[in-house]
C-alpha cells in the first residue's frame, strides 16, 4: 500500500466521526484509518512493515495456532470490552494448549455508521491487552459492511505460539483418580454481560473476569505437577467443558458442589434468572486435570499467582463407561451435570 501523504487528508474525526463504506474500500480513507487508529495504537515493527502479512523470525519449537471470532453484545461491559476480550480469548486458547503465545493477527468487520470514538476505545483496549500480555498484533485486516449488516464491530483474532516437547496437554488424557481444579470463581463473564443487557436492567456489580492466562499457565507448568488437561471454560461454562473432556478421555467425573467457587452476586443473579453458574461463560478461568499426587502442589502454585488466588479442587475423575459428569449437591443428593442444551445466553464473547 502506498504511503499517505500527510497534509492531503484531514485527520480522522475521532470525536464525532463514523465508519463509512470508504473505510473498507482499500483507498485512502482505509489507509488513513489503519494509520491513524490501528497502527498508532497497536504499533510494532511487524505492523510497521506495512505489508499484507508479517514476516517473523523462525520460531523455537512446535507451532500452535488458534483462532477466535468475537461478536459480544454489548461491546463494552463491566471489566472489559470486545477489544481486550479478543486478545485474551486467543491467547487463552494457545495457553491452555501449553503454548507460549507469541504473535496475534486481528481482523475487523466494521458496520457502516459505527462511531470512530468507540472504535478508538476498542483498539486502545486491544493494544493495552496485547502490551500487558507481551503478545503483539503483527498483522490485520479491516472490512466494512453496510448499516444493518453487522452489529458495530466483530473482531477475529488468530494467534501463534510455540509448545515445548514433552508438554502436551490434551483433552483425552484425563485418567481415573485425577483431580479437577478450577482457577477461580465461575460464571463472572457471562453474568456481567447478562446484567448489561437492556431488557434486564438490574445493576448488579458483576465484573467480567476477562484476562490473559498464559502467565498463570507458565506458573503451573513451573510447578512440575503432572498436568494432563488444561481448558478454558468459555461458552457452555465449566459443565460443558468438563463433559467435553470426559468424552474425549472416556472417563466419568464427580464434582463437589460445596467446593465450587461462585461469587455471591453471580449466584444471586443466576438464581434470579434461573441460570446455573456451571453453564455460564468465563473468559479468565481455566480448568486443570492433574495427577492425584500433584494436585496440592499445583493448587499452591496457582494460588500464588494473582489470577489463581481462588483456585480450588472441585472434583475427581473416575471410570465410567457412560462418561457422565456428576455432582454431589450441597444438599446431599447426586445429579448429572450435563452438556449445555440450547443457548443459555447468545453473543457472549
Amino acid at each position, binding site marked *: 500500500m502506498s504511503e499517505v501523504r500527510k497534509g492531503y487528508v484531514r485527520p480522522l474525526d475521532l470525536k464525532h466521526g463514523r465508519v463509512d463504506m470508504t473505510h473498507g474500500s482499500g483507498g485512502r480513507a482505509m489507509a488513513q484509518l489503519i494509520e491513524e487508529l490501528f497502527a498508532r495504537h497497536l504499533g510494532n515493527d511487524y505492523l510497521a512493515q506495512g505489508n499484507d502479512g508479517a514476516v517473523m523470525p523462525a520460531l523455537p519449537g512446535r507451532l500452535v495456532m488458534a483462532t477466535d471470532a468475537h461478536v459480544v453484545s454489548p461491546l463494552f461491559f463491566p471489566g472489559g470490552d470486545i477489544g481486550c476480550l479478543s486478545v485474551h480469548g486467543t491467547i487463552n486458547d494457545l495457553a491452555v494448549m501449553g503454548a507460549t503465545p507469541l504473535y496475534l493477527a486481528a481482523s475487523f468487520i466494521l458496520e457502516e455508521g459505527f462511531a470512530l470514538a468507540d472504535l478508538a476505545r476498542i483498539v486502545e483496549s486491544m493494544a493495552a491487552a496485547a502490551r500487558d500480555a507481551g503478545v503483539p498484533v503483527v498483522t490485520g485486516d479491516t472490512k466494512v459492511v453496510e448499516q444493518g449488516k453487522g452489529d458495530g464491530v466483530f473482531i477475529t483474532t488468530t494467534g501463534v505460539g510455540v509448545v515445548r516437547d514433552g508438554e502436551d496437554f490434551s483433552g483425552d488424557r484425563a485418567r481415573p483418580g485425577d483431580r479437577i481444579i478450577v482457577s477461580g470463581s465461575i460464571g463472572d463473564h457471562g453474568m456481567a454481560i447478562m446484567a448489561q443487557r437492556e*431488557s*434486564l436492567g438490574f445493576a448488579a456489580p458483576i465484573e467480567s473476569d476477562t484476562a490473559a492466562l498464559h502467565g498463570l499457565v507458565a506458573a503451573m507448568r513451573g510447578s512440575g505437577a503432572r498436568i494432563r488437561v488444561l481448558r478454558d471454560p468459555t461458552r457452555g461454562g465449566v459443565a460443558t467443558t468438563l463433559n467435553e473432556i470426559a468424552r474425549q478421555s472416556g472417563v*466419568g467425573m464427580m464434582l463437589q458442589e*460445596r467446593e465450587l467457587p461462585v461469587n*455471591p452476586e453471580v*449466584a*444471586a443473579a443466576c*438464581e434470579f*434468572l*434461573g441460570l446455573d453458574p456451571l453453564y455460564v461463560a468465563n473468559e479468565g478461568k481455566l480448568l486443570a486435570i492433574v495427577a492425584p499426587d500433584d494436585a496440592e502442589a499445583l493448587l499452591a502454585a496457582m494460588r500464588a499467582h494473582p489470577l489463581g488466588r481462588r483456585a480450588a479442587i472441585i472434583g475427581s475423575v*473416575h*471410570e*465410567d*463407561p*457412560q462418561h*457422565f459428569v*456428576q455432582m*454431589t*449437591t*450441597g*444438599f*446431599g*443428593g*447426586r*445429579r*448429572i451435570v*450435563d452438556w449445555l*442444551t*440450547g443457548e443459555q445466553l447468545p453473543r457472549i464473547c
Partner: protein
Amino acid sequence: MKYIDEFRDGELARGLSAAIRQAADPARRYHFMEFCGGHTHAISRYGVTDLLPDNVRMIHGPGCPVCVLPIGRVDMAIRLALEAGVTLCTYGDTLRVPASDGLTLFKAKARGGDVRMVYSSADAVALAQKHPEKQVVFFAIGFETTTPPTAVAIRQAQALGLKNFSVLCCHVLTPSAISNILESPEVRQYGTVPLDGFIGPAHVSTIIGSQPYEFFAEEYRKPVVIAGFEPLDVMQAILMLIQQVNSGRAVVENEFSRAVTRDGNRKAQNLVAEVFELRRQFEWRGLGVVPYSGLRIRKEYAVFDAERRFAIDYRSVPDNKACECGAILRGVKRPQDCKIFGTVCTPENPVGSCMVSSEGACAAHYTYGRYKDSAGVPA
C-alpha cells in the same frame, strides 16, 4: 445467598431424611405426585430422591407450563410470526416446543419471523410502545402464577392506548388439571397410577390460596401439602404427607406458609377475573380436551385478543405417535419408560414437550437423573 441457602442446607436435609425414614412404614409404599414442574426440577437438581427411602416414590405431575401446551397452540404462534408478520414475544422455553412441520418458534425465527424472548409481559408492552409501526403479540402461557402479569400488561396497554399490542392467551388452570388426573381411569378404575397424595403448587398457591385444594382432599380422600420450591420445602412436605397417610387423614396442609394463605392474593384474583373468562374447553397436551380449564380474554378487552385481531383459529394436532408425553404428564409412565427417551428424543432435539423445559419430567430426568438408569456407575 441469604434467605435461599437456608432452604438448601445439607445438614437439615440429612435430619429430614432420617425423620422420613423413621416415619415411613416399611410395610407400605407411598406414591406422591408433585404437581408442579418447579418441584420436579428441585427434586432432580438437588438429588432429593437420593435422600428418600425406596418405598417413597415421587410421580411427576403435569404442572409444567410449556409441557401442557398442545402443538396446535404453538402452531398459532408460528402462523402469527411467519404469516401475519407480527413481532411475537414469549417466555424462553416456549421457543423450543416442537410444533407442526418440524418447526419451533426458534426455527420460525431463523426463517425470518420476528420472535423475541422476554422475561416478563411488561417487556412486550414496552416493545410495543417503542415500535408503534409493529404489531406486537405476547404469547401468554402458564398457570395462575403468570396470569396476573398478563392481565396487568393488557390493562397497561389499554391505559397507554396502544393499538399495536395483543395477547395470544393460553393460560390454564391448576385445579382443572388435578381433577382431570383424579378422574382419569388410571387412577379411578384401573388403579395403574397409585396416588397417595399431592405436593401442592408453590407459586400458583400464592395467587389462588390453599382453599381450592380442599375439595380434592375431601372428595377424593387425597392429602395435599402445599410446598415451596426449595428442596427442604419438598422434603418437609413429603414428611407431612407420610404422616397424613399413616394416620388416615386427608386434608390440605400448608408447608409454604411463608408465602401462601388460605385465600391467596385477592387483588390478583380480581384482576384476572376482570380481564379473563373461562373457556368452555381447552386442549392440553397429555390430558386432552379438559372442560373449563383455560382462560380467554373477555369481550371488553377484545381489541387486545390476538385470536380475534388476526382471526386465527385453533386446530388440534395429534402428538408424535412414539411420544409418551401424554402418559408421562398423567403419571401413567415414567420418562425412562418411553421408547424414544434419550435416543431420538433429547433436550437438543426434543420430540415431546416434556423434554423441552427444565421443569419437564423428561428433561429433568435426562439432565439430572439418567445415571440411575445405567448400572455399574460408581457412587
